[in-house]
């Protein structure tokens, strides 16, 4: 197989990760994270290469892809907004912010804008209830959310947007 996803450089890092465990498969999640970090997603081809790397049937990697919420088969938009919908955030009005963003961006939770600028998702408790209502925007935890704060994020990523 032509290893186009796991380049020699990625393979070297992956081998290093594997050396932390007595069983190679234990490195599956970290190696998948590494590949997703590089490519923004784990494509079907990448799944096959990962399976081959670990000497596992492809279905085992597909199973990890679908079980864990942090693995994506398609890249998310440049700005990925994930709003927490669990109780502490809901009590402080998280639902209103999803509706606000859906209106502003013209997409539903779970979707990406056609220009790939924004993805919007609902998530379960992220462990930041002290700043509820909160969102994870790319890697950062942001809260308490206000419409002004969200508008600022939108404007930073998309010039055409208006209040």
């Amino acid at each position, binding site marked *: 197989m032509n290893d186009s996803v796991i380049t020699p450089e990625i393979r070297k890092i992956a081998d290093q990760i594997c050396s932390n465990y007595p069983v190679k498969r234990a490195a599956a999640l970290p190696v998948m994270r590494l590949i997703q970090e590089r490519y923004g997603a784990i494509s079907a081809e990448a799944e096959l290469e990962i399976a081959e790397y670990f000497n596992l049937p492809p279905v*085992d990697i597909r199973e990890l892809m679908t079980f864990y*919420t942090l693995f994506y088969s398609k890249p998310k938009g440049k700005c990925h907004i994930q709003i927490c*919908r669990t109780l502490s955030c809901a009590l402080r009005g998280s639902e209103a912010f999803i509706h606000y963003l859906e209106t502003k961006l013209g997409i539903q939770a779970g979707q990406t804008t056609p220009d790939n600028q924004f993805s919007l998702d609902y998530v379960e408790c992220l462990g930041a209830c002290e700043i509820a209502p909160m969102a994870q925007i790319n890697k950062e935890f942001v809260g308490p959310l206000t419409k002004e704060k969200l508008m600022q994020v939108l404007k930073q990523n998309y010039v055409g947007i208006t209040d």
Partner: protein
Amino acid sequence: MEKLISRFFDLPSSLSAYKKEGGYDVAKRALEMKPAEIEEEVKRSNLRGLGGAGFGCGIKWSFVPRNTGKPIYLVVNADEGEPGTFKDKYILTHVPHLLLEGIIIASWAVGIHKAYIYIRGEYELPYLRLKSALDEAYQNGLLGKRILGSSFDLDVVIHRGAGAYICGEETGLLESLEGKKGFPRLKPPFPAVVGLFGCPTVINNVETLSYLPFIVNRGGEWFAKLGTEKNGGMRLFSVSGHVKNPGVYELPMGITLREIIYHHTGGIRGGKKLKAVVPGGLSAAILTESELDVKMDFDSLKAVGSMGGSGGVIVMDETTSMVDALRITMQFYAHESCGQCTPCREGTGWIYRILGRIVRGKGRLEDLNQMLDIGNYLGGTTICALADGAQMAFLSYLKKFRGEFEQFIRDGVPKETYAHA
């Protein structure tokens, strides 16, 4: 009141700052003690597992066979996923070296040379801080070969999760750490005997381990006295919801729920009245005004039909719709059920969908008994405790607020609920 762990939350997270406070002195002394002495001290301290189960830490260690010829592993549960809980994030972010010092002490006590820290995948800053602390520790001979000038070797690996509540359940975590989906394992065998990679394994929560340096330093008896009869010390309460000042509060186990809410977190915002409180993470049974004088230790909360759990306190004021709060709660379990056991996979989803129908104004009075029927099958019928937690929460809402559910179904959707604002 003296603060232990939380005293460090305002200090820099670096090794030099930690050392200035006497950091790693206790680990150095611990390495000169006999491992059995440390285990005894921890037993005396009544330190309970602060991840949620509340199992005695020292007793847990004593279940680990030391002579199987296999390595013993320490797995640090930093998956913090119980809704309403965010205290481990504070330790990882603000005082990662305290956790590492606790890991050294636990490892020496049980004879462990390899520890894995399983940290939830969404925690970015906590991971970066922990990683940087780990690098500092290796560079300064605090981890690796012959640590702290002793003959003891200890390696620590950080393992990042990938988004799954179930991986906070200890055997689901082990499966995930082995590179599989996080399906909890049938017990026995317990992880103490057959755990990670088939070897004896200690699984401890971040906060539990972080109290060890204090216990070894000042003695088990001192720690025990800070708490109630069988619940040693203090713990970190994560308080959120409709309180004035949400945050992490380190308080003695014997504090009452009323004191936490009205004395420490400034009471209910806007001077509103309290309607209900989740006392120990989303899976705990909710309590009402008349129950606020309960002590917040594991045994007292159990006695009133709830649980201490993860110490996550979620406060709901009088404007809260209990119908919608339960819908949101059950949505969580329906989403996070791993799907292995039928009563959980199907039951959480059924209840959630019926509640969705009720919230949309299409409920029927017989839905309540229908849900109770499903709910009664959630407990004790599954491999892990996810369904038990879902059941405890679910039944408490219906028991304590059945009238509100009936009214909601009869009169339709009230306008004044947070979800419809």
